[in-house]
């Protein structure tokens, strides 16, 4: 297989985690892990792009219908209140910021 050498920038915490997984023997090396990740992302993106585009309202209605079905299936007959949902969204934002975005910046403690 032909290969190409490229330079990639990755967040430090991802690099450290990848080193741990490599050490555990889950991947041959860092390149093997990156290649596996790229294969997965490209396959998923191709699946998404292969879909015939709908108009906004059609797609919106479809997504809402799917959410309603899942809510019923999950037994969430009583919807979360606005306040509960806002608190949950704030918690997710805090987590994503701390884990994925904050490490990209040199902010004070």
């Amino acid at each position: 297989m032909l290969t190409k050498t490229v330079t990639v920038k990755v967040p430090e915490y991802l690099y450290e985690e990848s080193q741990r997984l490599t050490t555990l023997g889950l991947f041959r090396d860092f390149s093997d892990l990156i290649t596996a990740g790229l294969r997965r992302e490209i396959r998923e993106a191709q699946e998404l792009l292969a879909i015939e585009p709908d108009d906004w309202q059609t797609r919106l209605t479809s997504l809402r219908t799917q959410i309603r079905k899942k809510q019923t299936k999950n037994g969430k007959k009583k919807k979360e209140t606005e306040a509960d949902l806002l608190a949950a969204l704030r918690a997710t934002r805090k987590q994503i910021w701390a884990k994925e975005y904050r490490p990209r910046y040199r902010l004070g403690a």
Partner: protein
Amino acid sequence: MLDTNEFIFGLTETKQSCVDLLDNFDSLTAIIPAMILREVRTNLESRYQLGKEFFRLLAAGKNITILWADPPLELIEKHIALGFAEEDAAIAAAAEWAGAEFVISENRHFLQKSRGLTFQTINAETALKWLRL
């Protein structure tokens, strides 16, 4: 620019003004920072395993710009100095960086602030009136 809560409230039909805003989304010129994209996807995935469906929805939008690049540190620091929590400062920084006119959010942490901002913070109900949607 729409905050995560507008998408989630509008998709889950939690709040009628947010439902109406998403119904009229195609008539807006919208900016979505990558972090908001990530948040909406994470929330839809963890609750309904429908994270990817959000991308299909966006693919059907006409006037959406996704801001993939991270906003500069100086703008985040500016918004922290204005009283935003770090994670909200990143969103506010993205809004300023992208030149957004409005940030539409149901988050009171956004709505209570106006001093020093280059954009106006309004909720969906106000957006529907002001933007005549």
